[in-house]
């Protein structure tokens, strides 16, 4: 199936025609020796291995640590495009935060009937333990990674709001670092906005959310499940870049109503915990009793207002795929504005009409699990075999409310540096937004994930996706 011609390519508008943001880059590229670039590409891989920028894939014991392939052709976004995107993201992040505050307090949006009550009350991501709790600074979603896709010159869509513990920011930073080392000349020819302030901004943003009773400079720490977690590299990277401690559950305990870490000089208070551990594992006394990763009693300390947990427990209710379909209504409800960024049309299979439509049109749709992530358990209709379609249809009928469906979007492409030169591949984009009482800060750029397999629409790193450096040009 060769449908490449129908997709919007962000670099090459048509026969020999380069889109404006890529013009300087194209000039440079056309004068480069492909052999030199191939060599650079190899060097980049060695660099990633040596620095240990690896991730672990669950269920693959043979390849314990893998690299996420890095492609050396940058993804370039014009300043004008970015302004529009970042405004849309900011609006969305504000709405999500207001939504979270509302559903854990007065639940006005449910009373108004904008979001069906059972979607919240029966949702596993809704934490009763958070009802009536106001997080320090009023911030629920300290870090949000909004997944965007593009289908045309002015057509951006939000695919997912990652409001739990979005990952990938270390790749955004390391990809840029790698490009700066390999091709410094490119950054004198192109005015690219910086991303390197992210760790500093993250620390500042987290510190600004410290509990009111925090004395002096807030102590921030990153909580990791440990070195066998797939994103461990990122956890240690961020702790390192922020200059804060990287702690595991067994380093922490509740002492005198505060969370303290065991140091070589006794126990020391932590004010802000940037946790990369899921809600369920956060506190064996309050959530999953079998968890070894969390801190017994941390929720009680949290409810007493003595520690900031980022992101707040219970934020998962806002990035649930079933809630997602209501995002345009949620945005209007809290901001009084029309959404600046569009949602992808979504059929909720829990609704009989929608289920009927989805089953009839399975071959054209992408079907996802409501609580799934990482590209697992999804069906890409056009790429599926008859047998796969049939077995997925059976799963759908058995448990329809577990699924949503979306049209197969004609995702934009950006060329990758392949053996035979430039070759278009589908991409998405995850910018990272930081929220604190001081405001919302969105790093210009983000993580571009690219489906390395020709024609593939799945960009997840666990499914053979790669990454690109993402440039946002200055005006």
């Amino acid at each position: 199936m060769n449908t490449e011609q129908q997709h919007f390519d962000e670099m090459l508008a048509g026969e020999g025609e380069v889109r404006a943001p890529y013009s300087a880059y194209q000039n440079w590229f056309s004068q480069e020796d492909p052999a030199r670039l191939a060599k650079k590409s190899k060097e980049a891989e060695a660099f990633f291995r040596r620095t240990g920028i690896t991730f672990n894939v669950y269920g693959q014991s043979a390849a314990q640590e893998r690299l996420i392939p890095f492609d050396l052709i940058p993804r370039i976004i014009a300043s004008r495009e970015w302004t529009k995107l970042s405004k849309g993201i900011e609006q969305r992040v504000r709405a999500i935060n207001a939504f979270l505050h509302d559903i854990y307090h007065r639940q006005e949006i449910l009373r108004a009937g904008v979001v069906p009550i059972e979607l919240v009350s029966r949702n596993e991501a809704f934490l009763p333990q958070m009802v009536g709790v106001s997080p320090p600074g009023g911030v629920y979603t300290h870090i949000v990674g909004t997944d965007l896709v593009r289908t045309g010159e002015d057509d951006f869509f939000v695919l997912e709001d990652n409001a739990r513990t979005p990952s990938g920011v270390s790749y955004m930073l390391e990809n840029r670092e790698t490009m700066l080392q390999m091709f410094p000349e490119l950054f004198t020819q192109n005015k690219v906005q910086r991303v390197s302030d992210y760790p500093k901004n993250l620390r500042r943003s987290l510190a600004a959310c410290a509990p009111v009773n925090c004395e002096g400079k807030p102590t921030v720490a990153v909580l990791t499940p440990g070195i066998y977690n797939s994103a461990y590299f990122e956890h240690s990277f961020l702790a390192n870049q922020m200059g804060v401690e990287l702690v595991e559950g067994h380093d922490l305990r509740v002492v005198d109503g505060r969370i303290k870490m065991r140091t070589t000089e006794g126990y020391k208070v932590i004010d802000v915990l940037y946790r990369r551990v899921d809600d369920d594992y956060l506190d064996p006394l309050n959530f999953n009793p079998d968890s070894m990763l969390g801190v017994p009693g941390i929720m009680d300390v949290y409810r007493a207002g003595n520690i900031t947990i980022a992101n707040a427990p219970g934020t998962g209710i806002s990035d649930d795929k079933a809630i997602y379909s209501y995002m345009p209504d949620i945005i209007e409800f809290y901001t009084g504005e029309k959404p600046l960024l569009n949602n992808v049309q979504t059929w909720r299979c829990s609704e009989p009409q929608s289920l009927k439509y989805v089953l009839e049109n399975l071959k054209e749709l992408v079907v996802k699990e409501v609580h799934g992530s990482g590209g697992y358990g999804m069906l890409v209709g056009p790429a599926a075999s008859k047998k796969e379609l049939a077995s997925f249809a059976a799963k759908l009928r058995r448990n329809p409310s577990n699924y949503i469906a979306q049209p197969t979007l004609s995702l934009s492409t950006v060329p990758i540096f392949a053996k035979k030169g430039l070759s278009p591949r589908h991409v998405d984009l995850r910018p990272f937004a930081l929220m604190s009482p001081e405001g919302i800060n969105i790093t210009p750029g983000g993580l571009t994930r690219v489906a390395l397999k020709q024609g593939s629409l799945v960009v997840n790193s666990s499914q053979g996706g790669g990454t690109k450096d993402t440039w946002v040009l200055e005006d």
Partner: protein
Amino acid sequence: MLGKTAGGLYWMFRFLERSENTARLLEAGFRIALTRSTDAESEWKSVLTTAGVCHGYDAQYDSYTAAHAVDFLLRDTNNPSSVISSIDKARTNARMVRTALTTEAWEAVNEAWMALKDTLKRPVKETELPAVLGEIRRHSALVRGAVHGTMLRTDVYDFTQIGTALERADNTARIIDVKYYTLLPSASFVGSALDNVQWETILRSVSAHRSFRWMHNHDVSAASIADFLILDSRFPRSLSFCSKQIEENLGYLAKDYNKRMPCHDLIDAQRNMLRAQTIEMIFDDGLHQFIRNFIQETTAIGMQIEKDYSFIG
């Protein structure tokens, strides 16, 4: 610093040192097996005993041969002290404490792990052994160099040094423990060929055959070798040197944290004991007992440090 981080640094450097020591032991064993085929079996047994892995080896093999011993010490992941196991644990600890390491130090240990994992993927042929052993020692030296050249002299550095010195002291003591009988001044052996080969093996297994000669050009005797290995604080693998190193870095920690801990009393006691000894006194009181006591004290110091600095909760 987190207690866990202190523990991670300490163990990272213990394992790194262990990988290097195992390589040295192998080198000495291999050499003696080459030159003296008759005693090869007992030599390999004593190498395995020194490495503290005889039990594991016996469970797997019936006889002591070069091929098996080399494989067990270098590549066997069932052997927790093999080079591959040690380097793997050193790197796992390094990942855990990555936020405390400089980029250079981390990359050095990560590269060591990548390179040695690759080298030790297949059984090492006899002809390749010298090159492989050299590679192991070189990587250890590179990590040490990166740490020495780039790390701040803070508590982080102290724990790396303490781990190294403790492992080294233990290693040298074990070598003497296993070979102590060759160092006893028994009249019938003095000057015999057996002695010379045995002594040479001991010195080689601590990379001291050259330095010893520099220091004791004309006096090659059991007493002078034992003195060199135990009491000479110029030799960086002697018990005295290692003990002094531990004392020094524990001292910095006490100053840094403004607090003396029980481990300080233990190391002071060991230092005072060593300072009061002469090699004659050690021989008179029994070399073997002395070494056994030293190993026990060193283990106790290690455990006390773990406790005093909250390595585990």
